[in-house]
């Protein structure tokens, strides 16, 4: 009985050691992955910051003004002025293109005639 307990304990110790060994490596792998991911996040954030800066640089008023001037024949952009404001009731309804009528029969006249 006693020896059986000893043998079982021995196996248990070996099993735990194996488990601990595996956990240790899994943890290290997870940490390495996290570090890699965080490095990637940092790189992406840096890229984002650069792109934001580039967006601001490309949208600087001076450049937009030059581009508007350069493309004036095509776009016809001019600085906004007071005449650009309007009231909502000044906006015309879109013209509805009704289908052309053919062979009109005046039903009211027909009824009156009967």
């Amino acid at each position, binding site marked *: 009985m006693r020896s059986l307990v000893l043998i079982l304990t021995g196996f248990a110790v070996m099993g735990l050691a194996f488990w601990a060994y595996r956990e240790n490596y899994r943890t290290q792998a997870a940490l390495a992955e996290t570090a890699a991911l965080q490095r990637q996040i940092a790189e992406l954030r840096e890229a984002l910051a650069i792109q934001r800066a580039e*967006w601001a640089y490309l949208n600087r008023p001076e450049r937009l003004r030059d581009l508007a001037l350069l493309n004036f024949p095509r776009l016809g952009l001019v600085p906004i002025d007071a005449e650009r404001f309007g009231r909502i009731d000044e906006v015309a309804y879109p013209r509805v293109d009704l289908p052309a009528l053919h062979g009109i029969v005046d039903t009211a006249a027909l009824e009156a005639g009967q």
Partner: protein
Amino acid sequence: MIRTPLRPLARILSARAKGENPDAIERENLRLRHEEMRDRQRLRAEGRLLILGLLFFGAFTVVGARMGTLAASEPMEPVAAASGASILAQRADIVDRKGRVLATNLATHSLYAQPPLMVDPDRAALELARIFPDLDADRLRADFTGSRKFLWIKRRLSPEQMQAVHDIGDPGLLFGPREMRLYPNGTLAAHVLGGAGFGREGVTSAEVVGTAGVEKQFDTWLRDPANGGRPLELSLDLSVQAAVEAVLAGGMRLMNAKGATAVIMDVRTGEVISLASLPDFDPNARPAPLAGRDPSDSPLFNRAVQGVYELGSTFKAFTVGQALDLGLVSPETLIDTRGPLKWGRFTIRDFRNYGPQLTVREVLVKSSNIGTARIVAMTGAERQQAFLKALGFFEPTSLEIAEAPTGRPLLPRKWSEIVMLTASYGHGLSASPLHLAAAYATIGNGGVRVMPTILRRTVPPEGGARVMSAEAAATLVSIMRETVAHGTATFADVPGYAVAGKTGTADKPDPRGGYYDDRVIATFAGVFPAHDPAYSIVVTLDEPVETSGTEPRRTAGWTAVPVAAEIIRRTAPLLGLRPEVEQGTGAGLIRVRN
């Protein structure tokens, strides 16, 4: 354990035989037994103490060792923790009121050299001089072959330059990461932003420190990691600022002025929507201050905030406003304007003769010096001084940029009667255009004091001091509207935006004493729209001269006013103001709904 009996029979019997008390033996034995028990317990207790001591020693050793390693090791981000809103850059961005970037950071590299590691110093020096034309090959060679162990070559590199240096392939040329401040809009709002430079520098990083403007004023805030990368929101509007700068630059060229400045301010919150000062500079490459010359000639000089000028007739509005507020005059009160007005050895003249008398309204509309002097004589020096003080003309403005405290108004030492008379039409005391914009904003705000701010505010600040009554302020604005409609500032009449304002032309003081005859500061200050003022505007031109006519014209009505009008025409729609047909002008048209 053998337990000795307390009353061993043999000894008791022998004691009895000797006639001794056998109880003594029992007591003796009991004592011995107790002593033995005590010794054993002490031993046990001492053992426990020892173990406990060892445990404590171990625990403290562990804590101490951990503290030691923490103190001695390089700080490191916890790897396993999730990265939330982590700190991106060491310095927060600066954005305008609509979130558009005014200042941000860019990751770049610096270049340094460690000559002991160099393989071919001669070639490296030649190649570097080829890549960077501003470097001198001979000096570099001397540095590389000398006794130096370390030297900085370039603070900032572009990626192309970095690649070119990399291609030299010398192991002694090394790169250090750098964060660089970038102002993507170039010269736009340069005076507000200021600039930034490197502070303490190391190989792996360098401090970025604000050197002027909001960058300097909010340096600690911008660098505080506790803000979590939140940007600093300014009250400026990028598109308005761009339009103002473009118009002002054109106006300055047309009017042959040597400097110009414009301020647009929200009259309710005191937010500065636009602040331009020309000539300007590029904060990405901030020029060095001029040594030994007048600082006001430098492009770094912020004319709107630092420049204090005699602002001339724009002050007449305050004189008239105070007299209206005190009930001393009404707009229709007649004022004697026969000139010239003699006061001691001073003579006050008008630009031209306006006849024997004018109403208070006409005094302001036609800008009569004599009339204003007569009005202020009713008010008195003391009340005038108190009024100007309440409007903020006695201390630097509260604008949150590093240069603001240097814009200290120049005041006469003694507020004598002649000072009172000249100050009534804006001579003898100097203030910055921003002071004027804040004072006009106060008038536009119904007489409640407005403090200028460069930070975005969502709600008007509470508890501004009342400087004048709302009725007096409204009357003053209506008189100023007439000045624009048919007075000295007719060029400022922008259709749809009912501009109210006042011109001012002041001779420039000669540093050798007296005033120049042909150099003026031309100013237009006003509020718009007149029926419900939303913004105040000040445009100042330094030494303008308009030469389209037969003789050069320098008055503000011909110089500053057209520029201001163009600024309002361009910016009012950008500010979201709807043009409105003024009452009385379009009365013939009646809309009929069918």
